[in-house]
């Protein structure tokens, strides 16, 4: 395994929220203490339900937002707030593909313009004819036809638009690609085409992927490493095999059991989680999962469990599986 391209230590992003005129302010811990490495040629998947901080994490890694505390380094260089403005090359290294290809492409630009714009802004040293040549190559690379170059986004289907979004992200030759739910807006038959494209591109350019998804079947197929998040905190992380074959955190187990599998012969009894996700404004004391957990004890309600367990980490006092 090669050296990590990005290392994050204890990343946090807190938001101050005013509640009403006299309510004072509260802190929403959208992301609370995530540590991980991104390695070239490998895919790190972040899974969890809405409000777990997946997209906040994506924003931090792409430097759209700055962390409240914690640090991360790209290529060994520690990133300080504002660095991305001083160093355009830094930002070019991390690119993002958004969830909804109907919203992320400018309807008034042709595909060619969409693809050339990143170069126009970030690489003014590249002459116009070279810019166009690169964009035309990229169109073919992502499986579109040359005549698509002068068309507008509305002339494309969802799957094709997502290919265009991927192509745009690759124009600056990034080393890290953040994929924020890239296939969840697509139909099943199109989803597999886009996933295959992403697999091929990763092999070709040795890209590090940060793959954000709520769909465990897709993650199980696509990822190498997995972080499971709950209410802004990672609760379990490890390789795909470790997390899927021997989940240690009860939430991971419940999440997997709740995910419907397309196998009617093996209908298993689901683990039924009581209640709903608590509001991020009012996170329970102790382990965030304790009100819904069937194993919760007084210790869980009082203290927050630390991440333990080495390369297969989990934050739980009463983990599933073999006792240590």
């Amino acid at each position, binding site marked *: 395994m090669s050296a990590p391209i990005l290392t994050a230590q204890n990343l946090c992003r807190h938001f101050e929220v005013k509640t009403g005129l006299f309510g004072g302010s509260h802190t929403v811990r959208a992301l609370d203490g995530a540590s991980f490495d991104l390695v070239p040629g490998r895919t790190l998947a972040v899974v969890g*339900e*809405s409000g777990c901080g997946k997209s906040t994490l994506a924003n931090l890694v792409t430097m759209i937002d700055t962390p409240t505390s914690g640090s991360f380094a790209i290529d060994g260089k520690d990133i300080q707030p504002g660095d991305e403005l001083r160093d355009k090359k830094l930002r070019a290294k991390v690119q993002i593909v958004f969830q909804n290809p109907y919203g992320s492409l400018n309807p008034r630009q042709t595909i060619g313009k969409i693809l050339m714009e990143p170069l126009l802004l970030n690489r003014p040293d590249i002459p116009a004819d070279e810019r166009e040549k690169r964009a035309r190559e990229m169109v073919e690379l992502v499986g579109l036809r040359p005549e698509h170059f002068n068309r507008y986004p509305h002339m494309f*289907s969802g*799957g094709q638009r997502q290919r265009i979004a991927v192509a745009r992200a690759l124009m600056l030759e990034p080393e890290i690609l953040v994929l924020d739910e890239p296939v969840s807006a697509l*139909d*099943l*038959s*199109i*989803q*597999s*085409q886009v*996933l*295959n494209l992403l*697999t091929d591109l990763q092999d070709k350019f040795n890209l590090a992927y940060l793959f954000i998804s*709520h769909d*465990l*079947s*897709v993650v*199980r*197929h*696509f990822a190498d490493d997995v972080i499971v998040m709950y209410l802004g905190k990672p609760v379990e992380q490890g390789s795909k095999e470790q997390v899927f074959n021997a989940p240690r955190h009860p939430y991971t187990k*419940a*999440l997997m*059991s*709740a*995910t*419907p*599998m*397309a*196998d*009617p*012969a093996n*209908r298993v009894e*689901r683990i*039924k*989680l009581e209640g*709903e*996700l608590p509001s991020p404004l009012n996170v329970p004391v102790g382990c965030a999962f304790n009100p819904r957990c069937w194993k919760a004890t007084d210790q869980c309600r009082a203290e927050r469990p630390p991440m333990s367990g080495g390369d297969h980490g989990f934050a739980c006092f009463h983990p599933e599986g073999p006792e240590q």
Partner: protein
Amino acid sequence: MSLLEIKNLTVEFRTANGPFRAVDSVDMTVEAGDLRAIVGESGSGKSVSMLAMMGLLPWTANITADKMEFDGQDLLKMSARDRRKIIGKDVSMIFQEPMSSLNPCYTVGRQIKEVLRQHTPLTRSERQARAVELMDQVGIPDPAKRLSAFPHQLSGGMSQRVMIAMALACKPKLLIADEPTTALDVTIQAQILDLLIDLQKTEGMALILITHDMGVVAETVDRVSVQYAGQRVEEQEVNALFTDPHHPYTAALLAALPERATGKHLPTIAGVVPGQFDRPKGCLFSPRCAFADDLCHSTQPGKASADLGEALCHHPLKNGQPVSEEPA
């Protein structure tokens, strides 16, 4: 007599560019107490066929059918006024987006009681009691108090429970659930699906689940019809469908599921669903089908026999291999 019988239902929308056929000769028979699903990708006409039956489509829709009967009553000949007496009472529907299907201006209690006021002779206090009972039945804690909550005060899962309570208010014989869990998180999805199945059993109603999620289908229903580009291409029992799909489209769709993948690459279905202007002459799936031949490209297929899932195909599959059979 079947609870719902639809024969040869076709829905065409009048658009500025000519007619667009959203549903194409769909048949469906539902018995009382059935638990079934309609599965298909976006644009396959799965919602539109049910909306047509409910009479909820806009005036631009042209609905034709040989037969459309609910509980012995002919829905085709019925006036809109008479149909309103059935819709919402004996047939009800829950929709995909619970947050936007509730009226934000009224309390959820008022919205549940509106159904009762329209369709039942209950008095005001009886309606209140029934509303509390319904909220309790769908698992909302502290039901009497929650009746006076406004939709924005409820989470997505709670809103969907309110929608289900509303749909159940008059003890329907048929409940249509149109992607009821698509907007919800998986742990909440599991709760809502369990609730729907429990209610279907205890109330003895028929449930039609419209979904695109093969996992939900496999874990929930007994019988499945698969739709593609407006046509029903296959109908089977759920176990048989997943082990031995008879239409090449179903087979390809199941193969594309990430959990069935064996290698690094997923099997794909080449091309896209035909649109308004590029409908093929023969079988609608023929441009994307691995087994298509000249016959498929030139002639529309008829239905295969019942043991082949009535697959709409010239060469229906058996154990993954095409068998030649003359259409019945």
